[in-house]
């Protein structure tokens, strides 16, 4: 009886000792700062680095839905087909195009715009020819109907859940929510989720600024947010070899339009002058500056 009790006491003592040691080692590890101080959730703990791959796959799935199932396989992809049309649509803004004449890739709009998913589409043999009747083999986009756009949303939300640091997911989802479905509140909420996961990110701030300017017609808040986006872009670009000047162009253009609308022509000219340095269509920007100068003189 006595040796049995001793064994139980010893086991309890060892358990307390090991628990205490584990707590001590954990505190020591955190003090070293070699590991993240807090877990990012269950998904992160279970999936680790594979989270990013899953998020990318889910993002591609959303693009597949944008093309209504017509999607090139890795054997059909050509140069440029890696760009998602769902993304490029979301980057475009009609106003900038109209005034500065440049699209998201910095090319002029001449003739028809081609989707990056266009690929060689002739049947190679009778099996290929027959099979085309049984899977989507015609190139159409989901944005022709609101229902089509809705179908992208689950995949984008799941992609963000798997990788909250994938900024593109937030901006693309917000664009489709506010532009095609009129869900401005949901778009803003999703962008704010993105900002919580990626504090101060200029892409998300820019998209948020667009919501305030284009949907809420609140130029004051839009200006504050876009100025913060500009400041954060500048801070980030200092450490980058090839900074994302397309984002800079978009921020500057929106700020210039806000200042123009608020009749701060001098400030608008300042933004346009900076935009001219990066724009692939400096003549278009120069034209805008001239118009603003005329307004300024009249004032």
């Amino acid at each position, binding site marked *: 009886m006595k040796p049995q009790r001793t064994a139980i006491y010893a086991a309890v003592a060892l358990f307390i000792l090991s628990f205490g040691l584990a707590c001590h080692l954990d505190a020591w590890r955190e003090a070293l700062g070699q590991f993240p101080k807090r877990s990012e959730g269950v998904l992160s703990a279970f999936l680790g680095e594979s989270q990013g791959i899953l998020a990318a796959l889910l993002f591609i799935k959303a693009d597949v839905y944008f093309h209504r199932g017509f999607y090139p396989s890795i054997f059909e992809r050509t140069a440029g087909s890696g760009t998602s049309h769902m993304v490029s649509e979301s980057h475009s803004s009609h106003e900038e195009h109209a005034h500065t004449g440049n699209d998201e890739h910095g090319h002029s709009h001449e003739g028809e715009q081609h989707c990056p998913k266009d690929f060689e589409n002739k049947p190679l043999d009778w*099996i290929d020819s027959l099979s085309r009747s049984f899977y989507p083999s015609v190139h159409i986009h989901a944005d022709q109907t609101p229902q089509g756009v*809705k179908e992208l949303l689950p995949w984008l939300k799941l992609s963000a859940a798997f990788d909250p640091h994938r900024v593109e997911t937030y901006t693309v989802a917000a664009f489709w929510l506010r532009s095609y479905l009129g869900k401005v509140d*949901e778009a803003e909420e999703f962008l704010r989720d993105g900002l919580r996961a990626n504090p101060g990110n200029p892409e998300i701030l820019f998209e948020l600024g667009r919501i305030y300017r284009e949907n809420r017609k609140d130029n004051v808040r839009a200006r504050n947010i876009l100025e913060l986006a500009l400041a954060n872009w500048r801070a980030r670009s200092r450490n980058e070899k090839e900074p994302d000047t397309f984002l800079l162009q978009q921020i500057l253009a929106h700020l210039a339009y806000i200042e123009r609308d608020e009749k701060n022509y001098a400030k608008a000219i300042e933004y346009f002058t900076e935009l001219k340095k990066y724009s692939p269509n400096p003549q278009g920007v120069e034209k805008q500056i001239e118009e603003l100068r005329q307004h300024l003189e009249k004032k």
Partner: protein
Amino acid sequence: MRAHLDKILALSGVAIREMYRRKDFYVVLILTVILTLALGSMNFFNEPGITGYVKEICLLLIWVFLLIIAITASARQIPSEIESATIFPLLAKPVTRSEVLLGKALGCWLATGIALVVFYTIFAILTASREHTLPVGLLIQTVLAHWTMLAIVISMTFLGSVIFAAPSSNTTICLTVIIGIMLLGRHLHKIALGLSEPTRTIVEIIYFSIPHVEIFDLRDLLIHNYPAAPWDKFGILLVYGFFYSVIFLILGCLAFNRKRLR
């Protein structure tokens, strides 16, 4: 001929009863319903009427589970009879080995057909309740194409069950081959065009000789709300599937007739 058919049908009835006494089908059915309902109840940006992801996941589960059921059930039919020595009293009756194999294959195919109807009925109810429409023509095509594809899979597995020693190895090989064809089959010719001789010719021979089970996958049409495929081409597809099933069954009968049972 009539006598042969009666024997095959009697044997298929035994195979069907055996399959439905097992719990596999009920488990995967409940799992599919629970997973689909759970996914369907998710809220994405307060947007009602999003159905694509529910259809996609439900159909994926149906395809995966039915493929596994068809292969595992077919793979064990002949080996289990040989292992338990019940094949001998069976062959002592006035039935040939070919009739045994054909009867069991037909039983497995009919049983998966019943499972298929149950699964797709649930899918149709779920879809109709969310979308308020039901593409009947395309749904019929999807079920028939899926069933024809399972006929190829079952006959291929029966051929494997008389060639390979153990059901486990047959199951693994058949699953690998079918999944490989599903993923790569459509692209083999494109891959071949980028290769140098003689590899190119070898890959082209493989491409034209394998059963292209991936063609029978009409899920994308259903998910993305396309109209039904042209019925004439669909008829050719069913004939194509029937042709390969018959080839595998003939090869299976030939191999089984030559097989030493002890």
